[in-house]
């Protein structure tokens, strides 16, 4: 994998994906006043007749989407990750339970969101949606992968939740490599036999930095972009658990129920491979820059590297 280049935020990838999806007349876009932020605004500009604005009313938006899905449409609805949670029961009872295929996107997920403070920093969305039977849950790491994975949702047979991030992160893919991504299949960005770092979202680039640092100290790490938390690529986890001394998960999300939780659940059945979880440890964020918050929460590349080193001893 070549060195990361500068890219956009994953929410920009969502916006670009909607434009590509517009070729399918079944695709409709739903907004709850935050289209400029989630980037569905680009679709709205070109296809106002297929964009439904529902105001600041997320519960209604979720059920309007499911009504449209029941009538042959493929709805993509978005708002901030935290505000999708206001419609959680609606997603559970009104979308997933009847098996209606609605694609929900929550932008501005995680403490990386920054200065807006804790009310806007969803650290539990991935855990919540993972508990709903039949939901696909994704958290891509850059704009190109977010675009590719969102485009793949067009013919996906399940409802989904995708978290995107507010801020730019380094690109992990280029126009060519992102084509090899598949929903439900972890993407190995770097190979190393000592330890494996399984990460998602903004933590993927931190994980790559951690791996470079570890390499300078003689520890070789595999880095996985686990963009899909559900269904989890358990085959890949088993393979890594078999060859490495231990696994480290890295996420901008609570350690309860997110990527770390998902991997821990799987490992508890499949074997005794040691696991360390880097994530937000059962606490709320506050206002600050993304970097300050990541340091305060203990989710920087240094924290990942420390966890990896602790598995080597």
């Amino acid at each position: 994998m070549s060195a990361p280049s500068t890219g956009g935020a994953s929410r920009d990838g969502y916006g670009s994906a909607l434009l590509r999806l517009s070729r399918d007349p079944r695709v409709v876009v739903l907004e709850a006043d935050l289209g400029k932020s989630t980037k569905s605004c680009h679709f709205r500009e070109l296809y106002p007749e297929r964009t439904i604005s529902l105001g600041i009313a997320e519960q209604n938006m979720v059920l309007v989407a499911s009504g449209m899905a029941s009538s042959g449409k493929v709805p993509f609805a978005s708002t901030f990750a935290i505000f999708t949670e206001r419609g959680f029961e609606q997603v559970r009872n009104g979308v997933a339970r009847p098996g209606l295929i609605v694609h929900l996107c929550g932008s501005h997920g995680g403490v990386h969101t920054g200065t807006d403070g804790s009310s806007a920093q969803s650290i539990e969305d991935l855990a919540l949606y993972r508990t709903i039977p039949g939901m696909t849950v994704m958290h891509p790491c850059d704009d190109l992968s977010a675009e590719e994975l969102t485009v793949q949702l067009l013919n996906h047979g399940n409802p989904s939740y995708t978290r995107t991030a507010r801020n730019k992160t380094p690109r992990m893919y280029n126009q060519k490599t992102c084509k090899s991504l598949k929903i439900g299949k972890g993407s190995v960005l770097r190979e190393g036999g000592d330890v494996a770092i399984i990460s998602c979202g903004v933590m993927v680039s931190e994980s790559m930095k951690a791996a470079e640092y570890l390499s300078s100290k003689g520890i070789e790490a595999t880095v996985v972009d686990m963009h899909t938390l559900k269904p989890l690529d358990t085959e890949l986890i088993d393979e890594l658990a078999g060859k490495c001394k231990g696994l480290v998960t890295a996420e901008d999300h609570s350690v309860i129920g997110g990527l770390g939780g998902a991997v821990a659940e799987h490992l508890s059945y499949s074997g005794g491979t040691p696991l360390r979880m880097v994530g937000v440890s059962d606490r709320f964020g506050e206002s600050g820059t993304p970097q300050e918050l990541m340091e305060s929460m203990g989710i920087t590349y240094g924290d990942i590297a420390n966890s990896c080193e602790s598995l080597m001893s």
Partner: protein
Amino acid sequence: MDNIQLEELARQCRRHIVRMIHSAGAGHPGGSLSAIDILVALYANKLRFDVENPDWEDRDRFVMSKGHASPAVYSILHEVGFISEADMMSFRKMGSVCQGHVDMKWTQGVDFSAGSLGMGLSFGLGCALAARMDSSDRDIWVMVGDGEIQEGQFWEAVMAADFHSVGRLNLIVDRNRIQNDDFVEVQMEVGDVAKKLSSFGWDVREIDGHSMEEVVSALEWSSKNITSPTAIIAHTIKGKGISFMENNPSFHGKAPNDEELRMSLEELS
């Protein structure tokens, strides 16, 4: 069907309702009996559907948002030929196509999975918006309970339907004045629903929900109005048709025992 035939069909459905709930040992007779006259008129005279092709894209939709009144829905679905007597009588039993609350995933002819109140009008709005995008003239009917409209989401949908000028969205409020715990006026009175909906931009008509003449005429009025969303406030009696259940909060969610079933069927004979 003429009004006499509709009234007889409603009486038959009332018998199904009490038998189903008695057999299950659980269910909601009160709100099923208050709603059934409207459902009978809707299915018999208004709703466009095809029993041989339940997923027909251009069928009208009926969204039963007060999903606990499922026995009312199953009774009329049985009468129009969607579900068998055996299926109907397996209500609430393990593996039954007739789940406790109406569920589109389980029952042919059901257009919405209900059970959590306040969601149906939003779903109906989505159906209506999709129909308009497809230039289809299918009508969307949604029934809610009066206790149900205490849910905030209902008013989100009311506001959005007006904003989007969805003319083929037809709401029926089953104003039976009783909810789970007690009378609506005790729990949290919802007040002048017609005035509230009018102030949100809806065209509203109030009727006696047990007068077939008024029900039939209101359904006709509602379906002909395709310029703005319409609402029928149907003033009804919870438990209508069975004297000891009428206006009795304790029969919101209680099954009749053997003796009560016998008395019910006698009154409905």
